[in-house]
């Protein structure tokens, strides 16, 4: 190792207090390497066998997350990492978890793990110091990971919301186009109507019939698709026999509004010869009306969703105790997770205590509790699963039970589910912080959480006091 001297080694922070003979031992047992800017120092999946000390330059570490390389942090000669990289004594790392790239010209010396034992005999304090660096490194990892999880969670939420908003927005767009067409046609149909010799009072009568239909529409049992198609066929045939053009489209609309042949015949008999003009005119009116109802539904859906998001993140009130209706909060959470529930066709059973009082809470934190527990339940559930949410009031506390009939939590991991970073999901897929957040939020409320699980019945019970002290 011609270029390196023990004096130079002392520039590396981890090595600066090491006695001369230890430095010399290190030099004698290490290999010297140089890397050009941008070259790979360590590659993902390679066996982790070397500890390296940086003499010059630095290295960017990119974690391999499901095949994607994500920047985590930079190894350099600073007090955090001490200029030490690679495998550190007592680390359980078997293979490299990602790639390291040289930044600038990098010169290192590397010690193979076979010498770690000898090094410990020689200088146990140094090993202690190295383990300190490892802890720092683990902390940096955890912090970065936490940030990535948060960004991921936010991304997922945004994707879900985008999906939820897109459908009603597309519906509004298509309906308003249709409405334009229908209004245009109205000129033509009205003109025809004025040319016919029908009595103006007929419009009054028709209006009454339509109003009656509307009143009935709520209570009438829904037809199956097949029954509906049959009804359309019958009406279409009748219209065709009456020499009315566009008979299919008219039949569809009249069926939708629940008109029977008798009722149409009734209108026709009142209209006399002009019924051929009256029916298309009426159909156009009905469709326009239905379009407006659909527009209303779609825009309500958007408002509900935006409302759910707003109260979920509690945009307007942060960090303070607020009285909140936990049923509304849970409903909002379900709205936000709606796409996941529909994806798995999950049935949600709500057994809410009817006279639930408002309870004091840090609302956005509490919403995290509902979101994380319900999200976990949905993740655990199989297709067509059942999610049950119960609420009760007992003496001085409120309890909420969130129950899924999924496969359950294995006994051997039960004790660890609340540990931060513990997850059964794949890297990048699961947070591993969800239940830790839940636990912390509940502690903040001086509440309790209990879990019981067996196959087909996993129950998270949250208990919250009715009174909070500031």
């Amino acid at each position, binding site marked *: 190792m011609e270029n390196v001297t023990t004096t130079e080694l002392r520039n590396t922070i981890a090595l600066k207090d090491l006695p001369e003979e230890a430095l010399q031992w290190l030099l004698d047992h290490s290999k010297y390497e140089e890397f050009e800017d941008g070259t790979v120092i360590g590659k993902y999946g390679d066996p982790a066998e070397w500890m390296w000390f940086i003499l010059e330059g630095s290295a960017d570490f990119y974690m391999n997350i499901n095949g994607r390389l994500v920047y985590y942090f930079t190894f350099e000669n600073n007090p955090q990492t001490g200029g030490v990289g690679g495998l550190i004594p007592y680390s359980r790392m078997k293979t490299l978890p990602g790639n390291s790239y040289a930044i600038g010209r990098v010169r290192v010396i590397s010690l193979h793990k076979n010498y770690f034992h000898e090094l410990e005999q020689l200088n146990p304090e140094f090993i202690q110091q190295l383990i300190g660096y490892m802890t720092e490194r683990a902390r940096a990892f955890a912090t970065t990971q936490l940030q990535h999880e948060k960004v991921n969670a936010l991304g997922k939420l945004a994707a879900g919301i985008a999906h939820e908003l897109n*459908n*009603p927005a*597309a*519906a509004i767009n*298509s*309906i308003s186009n*249709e409405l334009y067409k229908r209004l245009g046609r109205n000129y033509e149909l009205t003109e025809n109507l004025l040319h016919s010799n029908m009595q103006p009072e007929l419009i009054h009568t028709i209006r009454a019939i339509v109003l009656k239909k509307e009143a009935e529409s709520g209570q009438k049992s829904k037809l*199956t*698709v*097949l029954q509906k*198609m049959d009804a359309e066929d019958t009406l279409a045939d009748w219209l065709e026999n009456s020499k009315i053009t566009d008979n*299919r*489209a008219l039949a*569809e609309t009249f069926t939708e509004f629940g008109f029977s042949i008798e009722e149409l015949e009734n209108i026709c008999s009142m209209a006399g010869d002009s019924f051929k003009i009256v029916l298309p005119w009426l159909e156009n009116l009905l469709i326009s009306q239905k379009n407006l109802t*659909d527009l209303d*539904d*779609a825009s309500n*859906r958007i408002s509900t969703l935006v409302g759910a998001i707003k109260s979920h993140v509690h945009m307007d009130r942060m960090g303070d105790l607020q009285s909140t209706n936990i049923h509304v909060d849970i409903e909002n959470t379900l709205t936000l997770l709606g796409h996941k529930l*529909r994806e798995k*066709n999950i049935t949600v059973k709500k057994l809410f205590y009817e006279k639930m009082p408002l309870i004091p809470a840090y609302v956005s934190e509490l919403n995290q509790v509902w979101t994380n527990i319900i999200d976990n339940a949905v993740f655990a559930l199989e297709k067509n699963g059942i999610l049950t949410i119960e609420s009760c009031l007992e003496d001085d506390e409120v309890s909420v039970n969130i129950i899924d009939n999924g496969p359950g939590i294995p006994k051997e991991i039960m004790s660890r589910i609340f540990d931060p970073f513990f997850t059964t999901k794949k890297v990048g897929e699961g947070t591993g912080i969800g239940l830790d957040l839940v636990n912390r939020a509940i502690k903040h409320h001086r509440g309790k959480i209990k879990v019981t699980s067996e196959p087909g019945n996993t129950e998270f019970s949250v208990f919250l006091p009715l009174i909070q002290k500031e």
Partner: protein
Amino acid sequence: MKLPYIIIVDDDEQVLRAIQHDIRNEYRTKYKVAATESPLEALELIKE
């Protein structure tokens, strides 16, 4: 005259209605256009 069926399935009622409406406008003369939110009902229809 027996027309062939087009069966549309979507879990979102508003989307379902919009699609049914568009497809009907295009194919009303050549097909019967059935729409349902329930995959089971769609399967029943296919059997019929």
